[in-house]
């Protein structure tokens, strides 16, 4: 048994330690726990009771079973890159870190599937099969570090989801530990579209509230024969967003269609991967098309034509893979780059009808002026997924609250134009209240009823995803959790 000989006062921590193997499999000192008091959402911070590092499904199940029997709240965590606070322990949870379950278990290229453990890093999957001409499509900007387990929990998207779909479109099977410690499998052998209810669809994006995923079967794709990338600079946001709509209406489905506004450009150019965007432009578009070689040139010339008809200042096609990679590194590190122009940021994740972009950006600009905080916009323009980044300085009294308010106001604007409050980052802690912008109380209760089927005691990741409860039972539970 690990940790033998150590004097641990807390009985639960002693018991949990005895369920685990491997070096230093549990953290319980304040100094270590502090590193787990938040994830990529840093506005709210809470210490966990302990962090455990299981090495396999059986250890996860044993931990969960123990927590269940002893009514200890618990939650799962991957790399902690989530942006909505899904891995923050609101109730002094036992955090089950899956970073030691990081194996690529099998690859079957003939059937185009791979099986991974939840702690396996997103980009590593593509890197492991790239030499054979395959890749894993969902590519969130955090793909250098985020885990596929976390991607399943959040139903992560990414720049290339416009053409290839989000995580849920690439999940073929899951092994899962239920909140009582029982291990189940869904979608065995990676056969798509099994009969019965679409449980894979329900679990993917359930934000860690229904179970803990311990094995994932994913779809992998053959590399497109060819791809080309275009960069276009616009002096007016209206022209840029009109170009986006025009490109889509030509019938082309770009692999990616990204936009950044002036403030976002300022950040990425001040940070680690600048590419020399002009500072005085209103919007930059990054457009990528891929597929069989023969059609690509034609698509590119159509795109260039559209851009020119919409008063583009400058438009260019990447001349080498190196140039293309530089453009993408610049875009994909866009959130982190905010650190170069602001001590803190809060990123929002609204979805809007593409055609409403100029109007929405104008309203966001008004919110920025009212709150006195700068807002940068990074936009998956092709599918209408907008990321307003509210820049603030948490050291200035009052700014954090104003940032939260401004972020919420941005989401209200998105909901009001017929969009919604999250495209890919999840609700977590951050957008619980904003769920009311898009759901009635009854609709929310219907969803918490579904949760109760899986997670009846609400020990697993409680307090996430839905607004402060409207039902007595839940109020009581919350009170109990907060007083204990």
């Amino acid at each position: 048994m690990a940790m033998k000989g150590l004097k641990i006062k807390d009985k639960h921590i002693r018991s949990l330690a005895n369920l685990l193997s491997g070096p230093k499999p549990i953290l319980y000192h304040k100094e270590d726990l502090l590193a787990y008091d938040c994830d990529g959402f840093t506005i709210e911070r809470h210490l966990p009771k302990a962090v455990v590092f299981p090495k396999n499904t059986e250890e996860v199940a044993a931990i969960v079973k123990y927590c269940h029997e002893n009514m200890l709240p618990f939650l799962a965590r991957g790399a902690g890159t989530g942006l909505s606070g899904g891995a923050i322990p609101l109730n002094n949870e036992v955090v089950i870190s899956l970073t030691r379950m990081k194996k690529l278990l099998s690859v079957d290229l003939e059937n185009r599937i791979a099986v991974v453990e939840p702690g396996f890093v997103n980009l590593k999957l593509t890197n492991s099969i790239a030499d054979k001409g395959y890749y894993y499509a969902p590519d969130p900007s955090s793909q250098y570090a985020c885990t596929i387990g976390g991607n399943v929990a959040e139903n992560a998207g990414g720049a290339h989801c416009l053409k290839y779909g989000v995580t849920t479109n690439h999940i073929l099977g899951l092994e899962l530990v239920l909140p009582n410690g029982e291990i189940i499998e869904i979608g065995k052998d990676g056969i798509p579209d099994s009969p019965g209810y679409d449980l894979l669809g329900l679990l993917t994006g359930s934000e860690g509230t229904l179970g803990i995923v311990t094995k994932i079967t994913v779809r992998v794709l053959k590399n497109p024969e060819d791809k080309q990338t275009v960069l276009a600079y616009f002096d007016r946001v209206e022209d840029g967003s009109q170009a986006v709509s025009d490109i889509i209406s030509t019938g082309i489905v770009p692999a990616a269609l990204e936009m950044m506004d002036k403030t976002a450009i300022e950040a990425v150019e001040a940070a680690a991967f600048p590419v020399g965007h002009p500072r005085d432009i209103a919007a930059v578009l990054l457009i990528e098309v891929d597929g069989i070689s023969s059609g690509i040139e034609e698509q590119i010339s159509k795109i260039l034509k559209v851009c020119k008809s919409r008063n583009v200042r400058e438009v260019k096609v990447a001349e080498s893979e190196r140039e293309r990679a530089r453009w993408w590194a610049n875009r994909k590190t866009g959130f982190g780059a905010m650190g170069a122009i602001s001590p803190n940021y809060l990123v929002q994740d609204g979805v809007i009808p593409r055609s409403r972009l100029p109007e929405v950006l104008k309203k966001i600009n008004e919110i920025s002026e009212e709150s006195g905080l700068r807002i940068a916009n990074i936009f998956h323009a092709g599918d209408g997924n907008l990321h307003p980044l509210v820049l603030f300085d948490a050291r200035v009294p009052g700014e954090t609250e104003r940032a939260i308010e401004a972020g919420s106001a941005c989401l209200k604007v998105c909901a009001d134009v017929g969009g919604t409050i999250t495209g890919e980052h999840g609700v977590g802690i951050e957008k619980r209240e904003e769920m009311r912008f898009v759901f009635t109380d009854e609709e929310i209760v219907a969803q918490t009823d579904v949760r109760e089927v899986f997670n009846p005691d609400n020990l697993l990741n409680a307090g996430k995803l839905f607004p402060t409860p409207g039902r007595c039972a839940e109020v009581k539970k919350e009170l109990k959790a907060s007083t204990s």
Partner: protein
Amino acid sequence: MNMKIDEKILQSQVQDTPCSTSSLSNYFEKDAPDEKKWADCVHCGICLESCPTYEVTGQEQHSPRGRVHLIKSVAEGKLSLNEQFMDPVFACLDCRACTTACPADVEVGPLIEEARGQIRQAMPLTGWKGMMSKFFLEGLFPHHERLNKVGTLLKFYQKSGMQTAVRKTGLINIMPDHLVAMEGVMPKVTQSVRKKYKHEDVIKAKTETKSEVAMLTGCIMDVMFGDVNDATVKVLTRNGNDVTIPKEQTCCGALHVHAGDREMGRKLAKQNMEAFHDADTVITNAAGCGAMLKEYPELFREDPEWHEKAVEFSKKVQDISKYLYDTGYEIPKAELNTKITYHDACHLVHGQGVRQEPRDLLINIPGVEMVHMPNADRCCGSAGIYNLTNPEMAGAVLDNKMENVPEEVEMISMGNPGCMLQMAMGVKKDGRNQRVVHTVQLLNWAYEKEDKKREEENEWQ
């Protein structure tokens, strides 16, 4: 807009964000970690996968963002300078891979070194560890004469038959495992260049003089790898450089700064800045030393006069591979006919941003076939004397490294003496038969082969 803000958020905000860190800070005022450095960190986590200790442990207190978070927490008064804080801060390899990965350019490395300085102020090393540290860091490395004596002793140990005797009699088994491993790959001690050229003020260029450079010989480099230093002098003079080896130069101080002894670091830095005062270009061939020299300004944040001098000095420092590449050099004509791979020393690639230049020097040697090493810029676990202070972690990091070193190569080239020792251990541990070399050695061999061929041809004529 009527948004209800959770009370908890407000509470946590009050705790999390003191208006001024100084009032609550648990750091000593002098040389406290620089708030500006962590202000850029937005906790995005992109750095995690770049970190070798996170790769081994999977734990965030052993990740760059975790460490930055903890360092910040001491300034916010949430943590104190104690043993538990020391563990993550001292387990960092100081490999700087996170600074390359970070989208916001957070200077994690210097921040960690500042925190170490604080820990050493709060908890000076005592007992056996304190004595060892004093002996090596204060008593030995800064003293060139003493180092040379150690070199002579080592040479005696190797040549006299004592090495064989120690190994055969099992006397060696009284040493800890990691020291046995290191003894096993100790290079054959050759002559130190400071000794060799001690009577020459300037080592003249072999061709017309293009420029004058001064060379930092390094302490370990000159004793353990005198041949690498010698190759450096030869390559420089062959390419039109007059070389001086300032006599007053001393250890660069990197090991001291890594260990949190910033006072000693400053003392050595001042001595070196004075020793190299007249030089326009300072050449280093040890990545760790080069990165330290370039970071001297970090040591003098609170001393404007020396800070300015350090900024000027740091601009003069160049790694040998980058210097040759930038100023032009003669491409060797003889063929070496060998398969090699290249390992990026952390303090060259992440510390100094030198990635492509040494590779180009090597690829341009006729007959050299370069085999790609995946994750070539991943730390090998040497990290100064980390492999002595944290042998377990260093061993795990080395195992991860060796998995990526191609089997089919004859030589592994790199630009740092610490890596050379560590990689040699990896090669031995893996039961391989590969030679670990410095980039400049390969270049020099090619030149020597070319000269030999020319001499032979002349004899024939």
